[in-house]
């Protein structure tokens, strides 16, 4: 079975600063991973996904993530955040989407 761990429950950052949200996985089988975002009072939407191929995955809103097999990680990054990026971010495997508690990104002016 596949599981993920998001190490940071909250990440405060100033506008236009870079950000990294960490996700580590454990799996004995092929790895597929998604990042979902939940904006305040909205439903979840897919940010990006890794299924196979290139380990650097680009998503919506300028986010990207790199699948790193040696470090068993799939960290989410953005070089310059905006106030509108304030949201809850979830790393999860597909199918049942076993979510962790998520990481709350709070962007301050």
């Amino acid at each position: 079975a596949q599981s993920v761990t998001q190490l940071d429950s909250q990440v405060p950052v100033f506008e236009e600063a870079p950000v990294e949200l960490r996700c580590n996985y454990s799996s004995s089988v092929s790895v597929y991973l998604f990042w979902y975002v939940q904006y305040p009072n909205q439903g979840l939407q897919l940010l990006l996904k890794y299924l196979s191929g290139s380990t650097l995955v680009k998503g919506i809103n300028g986010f990207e993530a790199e699948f790193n097999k040696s470090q068993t990680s799939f960290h989410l990054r953005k070089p310059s955040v905006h106030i509108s990026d304030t949201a809850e971010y979830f790393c999860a495997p597909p199918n049942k989407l076993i979510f962790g508690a998520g990481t709350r990104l709070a962007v301050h002016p």
Partner: protein
Amino acid sequence: GAGVSQTPSNKVTEKGKYVELRCDPISGHTALYWYRQSLGQGPEFLIYFQGTGAADDSGLPNDRFFAVRPEGSVSTLKIQRTERGDSAVYLCASSLSIGNNEQFFGPGTRLTVL
């Protein structure tokens, strides 16, 4: 095209009452998922359907919870004898099929049990 819709958007009920929450998936999506999200928590898996059958109901917390999808499209989550601890946002999602497909989420139904 229309996304996943859920009705009602808000439901307030009294302890002990029965409630039904409805989910309309995206047309053509054979897989449908139910989650529950409490304040400050990530979504918690409840059950998912492939077509009309429940492929995995291991997340249902107890036998007061039941879900159906009789025609392989609309699904209803039913909660009997509601308790205050059932208060949460109930999320529905659909995907083309089970597997590694993206799940599209509805806006959720906020259930409050008084």
